[in-house]
C-alpha cells in the first residue's frame, strides 16, 4: 500500500505545483483585468482541487489552510468581495503559503514555526477581508442577473445525483443518503429522474436506475455535503453546485448529466435556472392540460412558450456545450508521462541510430543494391523516430517565462519601481532538460536588470523616458540553438568604468585595444565582480561569472549588448537538445571528428596559395573576408603529415566565423552524444564523443572553443 500511495503522492505533488502555477498566472491576470470571471474560477478550481486531493492523502495542514482560502475565493467568485490589489496580494500570499505547505509535505518535514506564523497571519488577513466584506456587502452585491433569472437565492445548494447500477446490490440504499442529506438542512425541492430506467423486460429489479436533482437549503459547506456521499462516492455521479452559482454553472451541469438533451427545459427547471414562482405557474399550466401523463407537453416547451426560459438561455447552453466539448477534447490530448521513461526512450533511439549506421555501412560495403535500399529506408525512418522522440521532450519556454511575471511584480514592489514585463517568443520550444537548468541564470539576469539596469522613475523622467520601465524576455530559434534575450530599457552599461576596473583587476592589459562589445562582456569574467564593486559599477556584474558558468555547462554561451541611455540586452544561446545532433563527419589523419551540422556554413578546398600562406599568417582570405582558422591536424597533434589535399570547413557560432582545416570531408552523420569522462574535461576543443557505425569512436568538436581559439591566434599574430 505504501508503494502505491507514494506514487500517487508524487503525482499529487506534481499536479499541485501545476495548479499553483496556474493559480498564480490567473491571479496576475486578475491584477490587470479584475472582472475576468474565468480567471477567478480558475483560481478557485485550483484551490479546490488541491484541497480535495490533499484530503485524500490526509495532509491536514494543507486542507485546513486551503479550505480557508477557498472560502475567501468563494466570496470573491460570488461577487461579494471586490477584487482589489490588496486582495490579490493576499491571495498571492495564500498561494505561496500553499506551495510552502506542499513543499513541506513532499519533503516529509514538519511545519516550522515560521511557516505556521505566516499561515496564521494570512488567515487573519483573510478573516479581516471577509469581515470587511459584510459591511460593504450591500454596495458590492450586484449579482450578474443573467437572462432568465440566472442566480439562485440565498444558501441553496444544488445537488445532482446519479447512482450507479450496483449500489443496491452492494447493500446501500440511495434513500438513506438522501435522508442523511436532509439532516444537513432542508430539502427544498427534489426531482426523481427515471430516464435511465430501461424497458420492463430489460429492467433488473436489483439494479438502481434512479437519479435525483435536489435543491438543499443548508449552512453546511461543500465538503460536508460531499461527505454525505462518501460511501458511494465511487458508485455515483455527484455534482454539487454552490449557492449563488451562475447560469453557466448550471449549463455545465446539464451537459455533464446523462439525460437526453430534449429534456433541457425540465432539467433547467430542476436545476433551479428558473425560479420557483415560474416553476409553479408552469406546473399549474401543465396540470390544466390533463391528468394523463403521456399527453403532457414537456415542461421545457411550456417554459419556452411562456417565455420563462428565454431562447437566449438555451442558445447560451448550446454554445457552452460546444466550448466545453472542445475543451474536453483538448484536455484529453495530454497525458502525463514520467520523464525517466522519455529519457529511456531517447537513449534507446540513440542506440538505434548507432546500430542503423552500422547496418548502413555493412550494406554499402557489400554492394548489395536491394539491401542498401532497405537500409536507406530504415535510416530515414530512424531519422523520423529520432526527431519525434526528441520533440516529445520539447516544451515551450513560455511556461518558464511566465513565472517571471511574479518575480517582476515582487521585485518591482520591493524596489519601488514601476516595471512592466514584455514576453515574446513564448512558443519557442526547447528540451525539457535545458529548461530545468535555465531558470536560475535567468532569474539572476532578470533581477539584475531590474535592480541595476532600469533607473528609478525620477531619473527616467529626467532623461525623457516613460517612467514605467520595461523588461523584455524574448526567445527564438537560430541555427540549431535557441536564443533567449533578457533586455531592459535602462541606462546601459558604463563602458569606461568597466574597462578601468578590468585593467585594475589585471583582466586586460592597459594598452590592449578592445571593441565595445568585448568590454561589455568583460563583466562575465571570473574575478571581475566582487561584492564591493556593486555600487562602483552601478551594480552590474554581480555574479555574472556564475551565470556564464551555468550557461556554458549547458554547451551554451552568453553575451551582452548595451547602448548608453537605451538599455542592455543579455543574450543566451543554448543548444536545443543535449542528446542527439545532426553532425558533419570530418577526417584528420586516421581519426574522425564530428562538427555539429547546424554550425557548418560551407566547405571549401584549401587552395595551394592559402596553404603556403598558412605557415606565416593566422587567417585565410575567403572571398575577400578575413577568416581565422584552426588546423585540426596541429591542434590535436595528429601523427603523420597532413593529406595532400586539405579542406576548410567554415563554421559559425554566435555571429562569429572560423575555418577548420581538415583532411577529409566524410558527410553528414547522426550523432548520439556520449559524454566524455571526467578525465577529459580539461581537453579544449572537444565537447563529447560518439560511436560510428564501424564501432570506432569519433570526438565531437567544441566549435565555440575552437572559434575562440582561432580568433585569439589571429589577434596574437596581428
Amino acid at each position, binding site marked *: 500500500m505504501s508503494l502505491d500511495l507514494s506514487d500517487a503522492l508524487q503525482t499529487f505533488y506534481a499536479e499541485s505545483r501545476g495548479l499553483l502555477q496556474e493559480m498564480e498566472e490567473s491571479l496576475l491576470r486578475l491584477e490587470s483585468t479584475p472582472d475576468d470571471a474565468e480567471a477567478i474560477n480558475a483560481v478557485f478550481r485550483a484551490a479546490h482541487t488541491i484541497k480535495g486531493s490533499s484530503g485524500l492523502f490526509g495532509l491536514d495542514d494543507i486542507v485546513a489552510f486551503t479550505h480557508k482560502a477557498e472560502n475567501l475565493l468563494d466570496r470573491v467568485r460570488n461577487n461579494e468581495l471586490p477584487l482589489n490589489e490588496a486582495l490579490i496580494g493576499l491571495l498571492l500570499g495564500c498561494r505561496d503559503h500553499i506551495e510552502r505547505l506542499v513543499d513541506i509535505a513532499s519533503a516529509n518535514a514538519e511545519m516550522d514555526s515560521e511557516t505556521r506564523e505566516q499561515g496564521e497571519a494570512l488567515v487573519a488577513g483573510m478573516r479581516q477581508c471577509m469581515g470587511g466584506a459584510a459591511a460593504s456587502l450591500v454596495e458590492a452585491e450586484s449579482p450578474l442577473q443573467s437572462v432568465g433569472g440566472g442566480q439562485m437565492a440565498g444558501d441553496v445548494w444544488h445537488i445532482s445525483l446519479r447512482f450507479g447500477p450496483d449500489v443496491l446490490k452492494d447493500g446501500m440504499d440511495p434513500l438513506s443518503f438522501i435522508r442523511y442529506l436532509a439532516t444537513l438542512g432542508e430539502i427544498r*425541492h427534489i426531482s426523481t429522474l*427515471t430516464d435511465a430506467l430501461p424497458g420492463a423486460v430489460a429492467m433488473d429489479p436489483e439494479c438502481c436506475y434512479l437519479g435525483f436533482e435536489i435543491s438543499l437549503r443548508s449552512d453546511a459547506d461543500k465538503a460536508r455535503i460531499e461527505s454525505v456521499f462518501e460511501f458511494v462516492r465511487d458508485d455515483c455521479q455527484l455534482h454539487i453546485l454552490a449557492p449563488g452559482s451562475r447560469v453557466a454553472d448550471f449549463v455545465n451541469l446539464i451537459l455533464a448529466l446523462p439525460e437526453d438533451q430534449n429534456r433541457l427545459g425540465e432539467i433547467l427547471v430542476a436545476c433551479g435556472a428558473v425560479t420557483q414562482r415560474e416553476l409553479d405557474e408552469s406546473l399549474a399550466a401543465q396540470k390544466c392540460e390533463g391528468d394523463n401523463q403521456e399527453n403532457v407537453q414537456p415542461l421545457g416547451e411550456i417554459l419556452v412558450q411562456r417565455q420563462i426560459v428565454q431562447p437566449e438561455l438555451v442558445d447560451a447552453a448550446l454554445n457552452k456545450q460546444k466550448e466545453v466539448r472542445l475543451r474536453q477534447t483538448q484536455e484529453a490530448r495530454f497525458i502525463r508521462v514520467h520523464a525517466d521513461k522519455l529519457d529511456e526512450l531517447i537513449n534507446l533511439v540513440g542506440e538505434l541510430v548507432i546500430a542503423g549506421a552500422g547496418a548502413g555501412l555493412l550494406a554499402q560495403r557489400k554492394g548489395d543494391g536491394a539491401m542498401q535500399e532497405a537500409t536507406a529506408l530504415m535510416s530515414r525512418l530512424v531519422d523520423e523516430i529520432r526527431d519525434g522522440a526528441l520533440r516529445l521532450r520539447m516544451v515551450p519556454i513560455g511556461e518558464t517565462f511566465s513565472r517571471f511575471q511574479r518575480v517582476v511584480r515582487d521585485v518591482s514592489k520591493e524596489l519601488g519601481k514601476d516595471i512592466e514585463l514584455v514576453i515574446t517568443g513564448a512558443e519557442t520550444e526547447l528540451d525539457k532538460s535545458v529548461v530545468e537548468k535555465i531558470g536560475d541564470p535567468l532569474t539572476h539576469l532578470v533581477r539584475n536588470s531590474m535592480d541595476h539596469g532600469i533607473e528609478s522613475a525620477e531619473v527616467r523622467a529626467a532623461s525623457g523616458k516613460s517612467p514605467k520601465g520595461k523588461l523584455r524576455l524574448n526567445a527564438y530559434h537560430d541555427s540549431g540553438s535557441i536564443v533567449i534575450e533578457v533586455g531592459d530599457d535602462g541606462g546601459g552599461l558604463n563602458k569606461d568604468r568597466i574597462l578601468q576596473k578590468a585593467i585594475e583587476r589585471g583582466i586586460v592589459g592597459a594598452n590592449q585595444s578592445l571593441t565595445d562589445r568585448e568590454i561589455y562582456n568583460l563583466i562575465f569574467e571570473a574575478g571581475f565582480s566582487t561584492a564591493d564593486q556593486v555600487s562602483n559599477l552601478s551594480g552590474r556584474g554581480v555574479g555574472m561569472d556564475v551565470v556564464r558558468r551555468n550557461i556554458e555547462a549547458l554547451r551554451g554561451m552568453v553575451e551582452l549588448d548595451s547602448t548608453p541611455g537605451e538599455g542592455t540586452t543579455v543574450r543566451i544561446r543554448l543548444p536545443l537538445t543535449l542528446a542527439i545532433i545532426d553532425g558533419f563527419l570530418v577526417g584528420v589523419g586516421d581519426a574522425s571528428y564530428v562538427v555539429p551540422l547546424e554550425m557548418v556554413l560551407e566547405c571549401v578546398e584549401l587552395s595551394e596559395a592559402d596553404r603556403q600562406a598558412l605557415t606565416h599568417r593566422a587567417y585565410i582570405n575567403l572571398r575577400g573576408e578575413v577568416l581565422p582558422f584552426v588546423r585540426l591536424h596541429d591542434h590535436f597533434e595528429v601523427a603523420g603529415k597532413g593529406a595532400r589535399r586539405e579542406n576548410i570547413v567554415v563554421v559559425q557560432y554566435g555571429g562569429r566565423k572560423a575555418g577548420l582545416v581538415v583532411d577529409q570531408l566524410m558527410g553528414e552523420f547522426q550523432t548520439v552524444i556520449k559524454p566524455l569522462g571526467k578525465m577529459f574535461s580539461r581537453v579544449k576543443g572537444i565537447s563529447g564523443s560518439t560511436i560510428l557505425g564501424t564501432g570506432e569512436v569519433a570526438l565531437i568538436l567544441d566549435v565555440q572553443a575552437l572559434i575562440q581559439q582561432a580568433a585569439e591566434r589571429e589577434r596574437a599574430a596581428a
Partner: protein
Amino acid sequence: MEIHSEQHDACLCLYPSGEMSIYSAAELKPALLDALARSEEIEINLADISEIDTSGVQLLMLMKREAAVAGKSLKLAGHSPSVLEVFELLGLGNWFGDPQLLPADAIKTRGAA
C-alpha cells in the same frame, strides 16, 4: 412477500404485504408485470407495506410507466406511513398523481425528517 389479489369489477386490486425492498424485488417484479398483463385496470394497495426502499420505488415507477405505455390505468392506494415517508422524501406524490391520505402522524414524521 405475499401478494393477495382481488377482482373488483374491471379493476384488479393487488395487496402486497411486507417489505418492498431489494430482498423481494426480484420476486415482486414478475408478479406485478404479470398482473399488469392480465388486466386493463389495476390498483396497488400499499397499506400493508411495512418498508420500502429505492428498489421498491423504482418498481412502482416502472409499473406506472409500463401501464401508461400500454394505455392501461394503474393507481396506487392506501399508502402506508413508510411509503408516504419515502414518497414525501423523493417528491413523488405528484409524479404518481394518486390521491394520498396524509394522516396527522405522517406529517409529524415529515417534519422530523
